[in-house]
């Protein structure tokens, strides 16, 4: 069974935000919700790096542990999904998430949150696969169609890799060997408690 992961090669990310746009368009994500974003570290300084970040589909996901209604679950592929019908919009997953992935539409008074929304690794949700309900709540289910997440597919420099852990690790390892340097697989230690060994 595959273990799906994201890997951002910061040496290649040019902050073009195509991944963000691809995601927004593919899933018709509402205004104000960003399932994926690009953060630039040391902006304008020597050694600047841009990293694209979304839900990393963590091993032993913190969001899943803290959810007071247990609406978050992990699929056989290691993809972390959630049930919007059960979500109460408490915001705890955002506090626990190391990557700021959970998003909430502003609803009603004060800071009242709507149902949580986040990256699904283009794997939809608990609704019947490919159904209208699934698309409206969670977006496209590309994985079920045998396709990988569109953000990674769209990435012009192939900085963002998505897919089976072993395969994307090997691609990254080969690149690092070829070019001789790397700033590492961002977020992997925090998300999967492992680094990609490049030696």
């Amino acid at each position: 069974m595959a273990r799906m992961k994201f890997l951002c090669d910061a040496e290649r990310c040019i902050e073009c935000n195509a991944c963000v746009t691809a995601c927004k368009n593919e899933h018709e994500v509402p205004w104000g919700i960003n399932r994926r974003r690009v953060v630039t570290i040391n902006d304008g300084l020597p050694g600047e790096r841009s990293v694209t970040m979304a839900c990393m589909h963590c091993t032993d996901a913190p969001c899943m542990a803290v959810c007071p209604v247990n609406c978050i679950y992990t699929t056989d592929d290691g993809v972390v999904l959630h049930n919007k019908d059960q979500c109460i919009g408490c915001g705890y997953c955002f506090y626990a998430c190391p990557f700021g992935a959970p998003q909430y539409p502003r609803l009603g008074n004060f800071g009242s949150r709507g149902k949580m929304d986040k990256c699904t690794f283009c794997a939809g949700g608990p609704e019947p696969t490919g159904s209208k309900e699934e698309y409206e709540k969670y977006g496209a289910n590309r994985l079920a169609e045998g396709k990988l997440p569109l953000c990674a597919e769209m990435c012009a420099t192939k900085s963002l890799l998505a897919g089976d852990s072993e395969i994307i690790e090997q691609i990254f390892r080969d690149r690092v060997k070829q070019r001789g340097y790397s700033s590492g697989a961002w977020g992997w230690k925090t998300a999967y408690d492992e680094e990609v060994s490049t030696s």
Partner: protein
Amino acid sequence: MSSLAAAIRNIAGACALAGLATLSSPISAQEQTQQPATTIINPTAQGVTEQQLLQQQPRITGRIIIPDKRAAVLIQPAGREWRAFHEIALRWIAAIAILGMIVILIAFYLTRGMVRLESGRSGRTIVRFNAFERFVHWVTATCFIILGLSGLNITFGKELLMPLMGHDAFSTWSGWAKHAHNYFSFPFTIGVVLIFLMWLGGNIPNRTDVEWLKRGGGIVGHDHPPADRFNAGQKAIYWIVVLGGAAVAISGYVLIFPFYGTGIGEMHAAHIVHSVIAVLFIAVMLAHIYIGTMGMEGAFEAMGKGKVDVNWAKEHHSLWLEKEAKSDELPGKDLRSTPAE
């Protein structure tokens, strides 16, 4: 002409030499790759790594082009620490505080029983809390119970209630409980402010309290040391309600208005303060409810009907009763104590 040709020859020769030099360079580059990577000319040697950044600061923050500034936090490993607090530490703190208090109260009731009126009932009553005071008390108390139960539901519900209710029913109930928790916070806060203002006068600690505590007043000892309108135990409850209520209200409003001028670190802190104070508050209020109902004969009437038996007042609040009696003797004032029928 010959000088021009010579110049061309010279340039061509120089180019050929340069070409030879560049041809030879891949060989040296290949030699370099066989050596450790550090010898390669690295165009991005000053690049930052995740580990370096996380050693310098608790979270990695950068620049983003979207308006949501929370999104500028790239990685915050503290989320895992907050998870450990919420899933492990908070549950232990809450379970020990609340169950511990229940065990203490049961043990206390079994050994001491209800504290009876030593001199029996006189049949004459005196007004202890007027309608407004009782209204404020019960509004605050009702809100507190709703807030307490809906709060505990967030921490313990999925373990205790979900197996009984089923997943969907539990999440529907939790959704309503969350809304109740948000909205009942407002009357609760107003109640705490009114409690602070209306009973502040009687709750300033003084020498009488030291004496009262030394002699083991209230339900602990068997003595009846003199006390004014509020004894030291009640003053303690008052200050716990006022200060604890203020702390849960302030931290609660930080949580209810998430990221209004706060970052993820402040949100974690607000949640930890809110939840720990809240569970301790619940434990203390269980003791307050016990004394006000099962623990002491004649105490519930004070907040129930608003009047207490004069003998109860004599035993528990002798100084207050004396003052009330004096003020009743003043001309033009209504007789507050009513004779038995």
